[in-house]
């Protein structure tokens, strides 16, 4: 079975588990906060599960075939992995400045937000280059 499908099932069964425990918890406890948390957990995992399951159909990976060998992939493109990028550290700095700026004032939050947006734009342009 394809691992992507396994992953989808993992999410969907976790979602079902969350909903089931939410219902059970409500009937034995009548407590709103926990029921809401469990229910929302189930719903959000369900959303992830549906997404993965939808994309599982076309996914036939050599990794999932027990008899496949690593040499089968020799010379094939297996993915795009950049070795360096200056935007992640920039984005993290932007997020940090913005978050701390929420405490101390706009003079810190604004530069942080600008730095973060610049980093995101940079990441997107870089992605286009990588995909090509």
């Amino acid at each position: 079975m394809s691992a992507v499908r396994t992953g989808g099932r993992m999410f969907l069964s976790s979602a079902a588990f969350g909903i089931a425990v939410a219902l059970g918890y409500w009937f034995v406890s009548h407590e709103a906060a926990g029921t809401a948390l469990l229910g929302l957990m189930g719903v959000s995992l369900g959303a992830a599960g549906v997404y993965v399951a939808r994309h599982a159909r076309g996914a036939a990976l050599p990794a999932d075939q027990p008899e496949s060998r690593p040499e089968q992939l020799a010379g094939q493109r297996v993915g795009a992995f950049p070795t360096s990028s200056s935007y992640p550290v920039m984005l993290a700095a932007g997020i940090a400045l913005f978050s701390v700026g929420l405490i101390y004032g706009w003079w810190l939050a604004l530069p942080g937000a600008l730095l973060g947006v610049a980093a995101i734009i940079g990441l997107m342009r870089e992605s286009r280059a990588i995909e090509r």
Partner: protein
Amino acid sequence: MTAVVAPAAAEPRRPARRAGVLDWLVTTDHKHIGILYMATTLGFFLVAGAIALVMRAQLAQPGLHIVERQAYNQLFTLHGTAMIFLVIAPFALGLANYLLPLHIGAADLAFPRMNALTYWLLLAGGLTIFSGLLLSTGAAAAGWTMYAPLSDFENTPGPGVDLWIMGVLMISASSIMTAINFLTTVMLFRAPGMTMMRLPVFVWNIIVTSLIILMAFPPLAVAMAELFIDRRLGGHFFDASHGGSAILYQHVFWFFGHPEVYVMILPYFGVVTQVVSTFSRRPVFGYLGMVLASFAIAGLSMGVWAHHMFTTGAVNNPFFSIMSFLIAVPTGIKYFNWIGTMWQGALVFPTAMLFAIGFMLNFLLGGVTGVMVASPPLDYHVEDTYFLVTHFHYTLAGGSMFALLAALYFWFPKITGRLLSERLGMLSFWLTFVGYNITFIPLFLVGLLGMPRRVVTYLPLPGWPELNLTSTAGAGVLALGIALTMWNLVVSWSRGAPAGDDPWGGGTLEWATSSPPPERNFHALPPIRSDRPAFDMRMPQGTPGGQARARAG
């Protein structure tokens, strides 16, 4: 530019390039990021450990000798916060960062740049939390649980708590992204033949850990946002005098907080499994049961949060009690898996194995006392006393920290190409193990006598000063043991004996590549027909059980 082409089998080996400071800043290589993670978390570990020593020194005798009340409140808040958010959990994620692609035969994680972002966010979050120390009002001092309404603006003014909230938000964003990255990588980037049922147990536990992170960290972010709104934007989520509820905070926080302890233990279960299997020369016993037990722990862990709230009188105690008891079953299964792995094996005891066995011995005490505190009537006595503190230290320090040290000794040769000194390692193990137990067994007893946690001093009641003094003495021995390992790391990094590709006779794929691994991890992969491809490669004839009965995914 960066499209990766799988290497042909005959490509010659070339060593990884040595990185400069700027390279570390912009790297998106999972191995470099893993090293950054582990080095940073060890740095925070030393800080949080030093804080623990100051606290133990203060508690050695009744009275205020070392620190004042408010300073002490900051210290235990920082100790808990750092150990949980900046050491035990992220070290495991950093280790997985390094190992996961190697374990599954991938070139990198699925999203290398997002991976770099998670590291820098973790560092920024940690520095933000500690930056409170620079303020005249000090860092957050409301305990790592940051219970409302103690943490609201009226009761704890000053930006320390706000900085704490922002730091934790950054760390939770970092963890969520890491979890997504791990899950995607395992689903899509395994080497041909590495079916799900051939994944090393460590990888399975990282999958389960990632799932728990996705379930538990969003509620933490919600709790932090609500706390911030209450503090700064005039909200009343947790303010009972305006229709809010203090209990609500505890629900949302522990909905994160309990699963978090499994984030802090499951990866280390995986570490111990790998180490024990390697040094017993046996395959993991009961592989499928082990995987299912991890999932059972994940599921149950989401339904036990209010066992931290038994004494509030506002939750359904029997429901949370039975759910908590049930977690003991899958945890027990893991113990029997480890014993089954050692059974009839051929055991050797290098430092990594010693720490793994130390983990088993210590964590067991955390486990059986965990069953005690899961019983509400017993919890009525021990909740928020040193008994409880000692219980969770046996799981997270006696447990996770010992497995962390085992992981250091086990994988340091792979990461650096050099062995750690075994002589220093053995000495470090015995000092750590003995010191740890001298520190904490007296705290079980003083907890049963009724000593509360989070107190700066205590009354000189019969037994209390003696037990506390013993504990402080033990902490000194423990600190010496840890210091030896740190010294060992520093010295062996540049001067250790060359390790070779596979110093231990390991089973998983990382032992089939060079030490340290080349830029894309593998020049050639062996065929993968079980969860121990490197072992199969070395002994193709000798593994009737290992190969023939390997499962097809």
